[in-house]
């Protein structure tokens, strides 16, 4: 058995991304890939899963939505959280064929990342990896209102193309992230679609990917206990979010006619 007890980690930096979302940087590094997650324990409070926003050092982007995330938001620099992981299956970048993508170029193919809510965290980690391999990366960040849009300039700093969609139109395009994604799919040649966010968004992205005949990788959330495929708490019809996921690979469907 590979041990997976929680490791203590100290917060070394806190960045407020929005009124409800902050990014915590820890004094701990892990060998992990984008899309993988950790179980974060706050003694006496709870233990919950969070996607890695970065692994070296470990960085989490956490929305204040309930008791546990609120308790985490009350922590300051120097305070501790206990982490176990990395857990789960990561996003996979498309294999690079000989000489492709050329440094700085894309050979006409790009990666499309669609993020809703805290889904930006693992997708930022993915964008970083993809850019390092030379991929052209397009990101659509969806939010309800301008104040909820997070990490946009961080993506831009990576050299990714950023599109913002807010439901109230207060920043970027007005509408859902998937509307903005569809407009991009019209105009640009993509190799793969990645998405992380609320389940209705993932469903819509899956539909889009199918329509545009692209493979997709979608990251899901479920209540978790073990985080490693034993307790059955996170089952989606027999598919375990913690072990088989959180990232689900969707192949290009054969056309039905």
């Amino acid at each position: 058995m590979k041990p997976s007890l929680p490791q203590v980690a100290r917060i070394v930096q806190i960045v407020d991304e929005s009124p409800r979302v902050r990014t915590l940087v820890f004094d701990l590094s892990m060998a992990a890939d984008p899309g993988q997650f950790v179980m974060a324990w706050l003694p006496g409070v709870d233990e919950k899963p969070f996607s890695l926003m970065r692994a070296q050092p470990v960085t989490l982007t956490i929305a204040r939505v309930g008791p546990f995330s609120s308790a985490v938001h009350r922590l300051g620099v120097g305070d501790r959280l206990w982490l176990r992981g990395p857990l789960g299956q990561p996003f996979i970048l498309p294999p690079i064929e000989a000489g492709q993508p050329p440094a700085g170029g894309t050979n006409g193919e790009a990666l499309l990342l669609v993020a809703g809510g805290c889904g930006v965290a693992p997708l930022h980690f993915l964008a970083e990896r993809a850019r390092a391999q030379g991929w052209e990366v397009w990101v659509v960040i969806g939010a309800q209102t301008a104040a909820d849009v997070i990490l946009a300039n961080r993506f831009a700093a990576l050299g990714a193309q950023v599109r913002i969609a807010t439901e109230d139109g207060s920043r970027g395009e007005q509408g859902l992230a998937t509307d903005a994604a569809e407009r991009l799919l019209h105009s640009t040649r993509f190799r793969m679609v990645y998405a992380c966010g609320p389940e209705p968004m993932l469903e819509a992205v899956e539909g889009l990917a199918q329509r545009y005949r692209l493979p997709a990788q979608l990251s899901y959330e479920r209540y978790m206990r073990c985080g490693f495929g034993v307790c059955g708490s996170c089952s989606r019809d027999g598919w375990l979010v913690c072990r088989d996921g959180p990232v689900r690979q969707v192949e290009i469907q054969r056309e039905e006619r």
Partner: protein
Amino acid sequence: MTLADLGVSLCGIHLPNPLILASGILGTEAKLMARVARAGAGAVTAKSCSLLPRRGHPNPTVLAWEHGLINAVGLANPGVEAEVKELRQARALLQPLGTALIASIFADTVEHFAQVAALVIEAGPDLLEVNISCPNVHDEFGTPFAADRGAAAEVTAAVKEAAAGRVPVLIKLSPNVSDIAAIARAVEAAEADGISAINTVTGMVIDLHARRPILANRSGGLSGPAIHPLAVRCVYDIYEAVRLPIVGIGGVSSGRDAIEMIMAGATAVGIGSAVYEEGPEVFGRILREMADLMAELGYERVEQMRGVAHW
């Protein structure tokens, strides 16, 4: 040697092979149980259910330490009404595969045990497992039913009456007792059809930096490789004490471990924590290892190995 040769009969129920998914592991959903069946299990046990829904303990509830798992899920379950629906669906999915379905129940009083049993049987499981490792509320010390001969026998008798011969009843014993054979005898006298042994071993893991037990419930149940020789000893002792078929459970993660359980006296073998390392596919690997070992040892049928370590 084909996999068909691994078939066994447990309380008159045919299992295509002796490996049973243990209760509480991946037994929360019909489709998940079907997945484990497809991966090779001869039977699957559902997560234990109670009369009313239970949220279970707060997290952390399940951890992996160096030599096994520790959990204090706190018997979270959706209650028997929802469970019956899940079991019905599971039954439909398992039947074409030939995999047996085992329902599992627990309760806080003898009366509630009988009630849940009567309700869960409506779903038509092939076997009913009774988890008596929960505290006995009739007992002033809160001793678990499984730690007291009288309480264990009372639950057995009540569930047997509720089952009314419609389904064989397995009583699941706890290793946290000084004489598991005595409990087994009490349960046999109360006309149990079989015994499952063992449930988890009570333990604790403390985090030095947090200065407290990691599990929210403080203590929890140890399972996996660390408890295997303890489980083998329990099965061995029970086999000496009673004539009932035994489902040997505890730290089985290889064909060797499974055959060891059978030689100790088990009719079938439960697999729980081993799912941690490689997922449901662990069933296929253990079955292949069992078949290879049986060929090496010169056995043609599983029953030939049962109890041979007693002489």
